[in-house]
């Protein structure tokens, strides 16, 4: 989809893929056939720019046809560069301006609690995004409000647009900061599926505190020439690079395009 779009974010979606896939296929209570079901858990992508993983998973779940992915970022499609809830089934909020998703999630969690509902809200955050002050306003509120129906997942890939996170504005010690804000903190390898699943289970059973899963990840995970390289934050692969990347992931461009277009 990124090759077709000729623009978009590549590195971050790949660092999120393992935990985001686990979240939708193993953790979330949702019904792709009824995207507005009042019984559903909600996912807020505070890092709106990871639409390639967000949309791919929604399509794989059945929220919309896979072929729509080929119209990502195109006028004729419904998949905006950054997600808009009015355009795309399964997108819960319009994000893209960083630092806003955690506050939205606090509101959702508060609403569920007002209604004594068991629904949960998950918020996908980036590390660079934790440089935004609004994240800390939300973190303070979630801790003080004891929102144990809120689980944040921090994609700690140590890369942001302009460079390595430590070289731009280090957010560490990030676990200590969230502990100080009255959160339950779980640190995991964000590419270890067992650790990911266990972390979501622990988050669900933790009472009296919101949980943040700090997932140490690798930008561009799974594609050798992208891994760990911040230059892949906001660019799409060329056709040649896309072919090579898909080859490393066990498919090829023709086969993958065909799969998307016929489903």
């Amino acid at each position: 989809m990124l090759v077709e779009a000729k623009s978009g974010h590549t590195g971050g979606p790949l660092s999120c893929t393992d935990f985001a896939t686990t979240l939708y296929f193993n953790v979330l209570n949702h019904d792709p056939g009824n995207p507005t079901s009042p019984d559903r858990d909600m996912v807020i992508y505070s890092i709106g720019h990871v639409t390639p993983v967000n949309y791919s998973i929604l399509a794989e779940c059945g929220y919309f046809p896979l072929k729509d992915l080929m119209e990502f970022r195109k006028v004729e499609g419904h998949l905006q560069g950054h997600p808009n809830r009015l355009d795309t089934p399964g997108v819960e909020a319009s994000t893209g301006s960083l630092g806003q998703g955690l506050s939205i999630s606090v509101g959702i969690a508060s609403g569920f609690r007002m209604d004594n509902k068991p629904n949960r809200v998950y918020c996908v955050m980036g590390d660079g995004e934790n440089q935004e002050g609004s994240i800390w306003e939300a973190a303070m509120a979630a801790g003080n409000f004891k929102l144990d129906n809120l689980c944040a997942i921090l994609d700690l890939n140590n890369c942001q647009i302009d460079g390595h996170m430590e070289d731009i504005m280090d957010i560490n010690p990030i676990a200590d900061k969230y502990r100080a804000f009255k959160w339950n903190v779980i640190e995991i390898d964000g590419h270890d599926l067992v650790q990911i699943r266990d972390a979501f289970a622990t988050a669900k059973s933790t009472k009296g505190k919101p949980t943040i899963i700090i997932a140490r990840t690798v930008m561009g995970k799974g594609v050798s020439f992208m891994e760990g390289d911040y230059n892949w934050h906001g660019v799409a692969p060329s056709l040649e690079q896309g072919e090579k990347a898909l080859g490393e992931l066990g498919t090829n461009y023709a086969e993958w395009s065909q799969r998307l277009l016929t489903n």
Partner: protein
Amino acid sequence: MIVKELTAVDKKKTREGFGRALAQLGHDNPNVVALTADLGGSVNMRFFAKDFPDRFINCGVAEQNMCNIASGLSLVGKIPFFATFGCFATARCLDMIRTTICYANLNVKIAGSHGGLLTGEDGASHQALEELGLMRILPNMTVIAPCDFWEAQRATKAVADIDGPCYLRLGRASIPVLTDENSPFEIGKAVTHREGSDVAIVACGVMVYESLMAAEMLSQDGINARVINLHTIKPIDVDTLVSAAEECGAVVTAEEHQIHCGMGSAVAEALVQRCPVPMEFVGVQDRFGISGPGDELLKVFGLKDVDIVKAVKKVLKRKK
């Protein structure tokens, strides 16, 4: 209403009208939720907070967080009203209002108190003079500036009945009460408070009262001024404005706001396409406020009835 009666009217705060209506809404609709950022007393949420503590959230001094907590609440079917001073409710939260609320057309109601110069002694930092412009430029947003205590109550109830983002401008000071409990109110429908055919004065907020006073003074000189209360700045009542322009041939706008991008600009945008007529703009002339008693500030900044009279006489010289 003659001048004598106008000067004898009661004075009440629009922010109190909001607070009383919000409490009533709390009783009428279990989905109504109220949020503030450490200004619950100032924005008169005490009535609501007392009756519905489980549906009241004090976010502390963190307006951006409050704004998007409201967004989240709307996503699970609540009707959140968040309130603080207008400067902070809009300019400080603008990105949240633009991208999270308006882009997604979320059902969030924003109440900005301390709009205008009547905020007084706290000075420029606290006198919202540009928030109507900031809000009306955003797609999907409804913008309302009630003229008095009762209209603030009606507007508060009316915005709860429509789906989508709304901004309510409220004031700190007690201002003349021009309407009553049973006056009609419809979002997007301007109210003509006084008929006249020589000039139309279009105003919102406290400037409706100043305009009525001006109209009374003008009548002494044989000038019949129509006074229109344009409480809804967006969506704007084009038909009422065009009729006024056609029938009066000249328009003066009056607002407690910057003359740029505010209500007057909205009126000009509407008229220039269908019935351009000579116009004058009474409002704050591209400058920041200062500290001082509110009513004195209206005089210093040229927002009193006499200033509207001057603007009318000026525009009439250009009328064909």
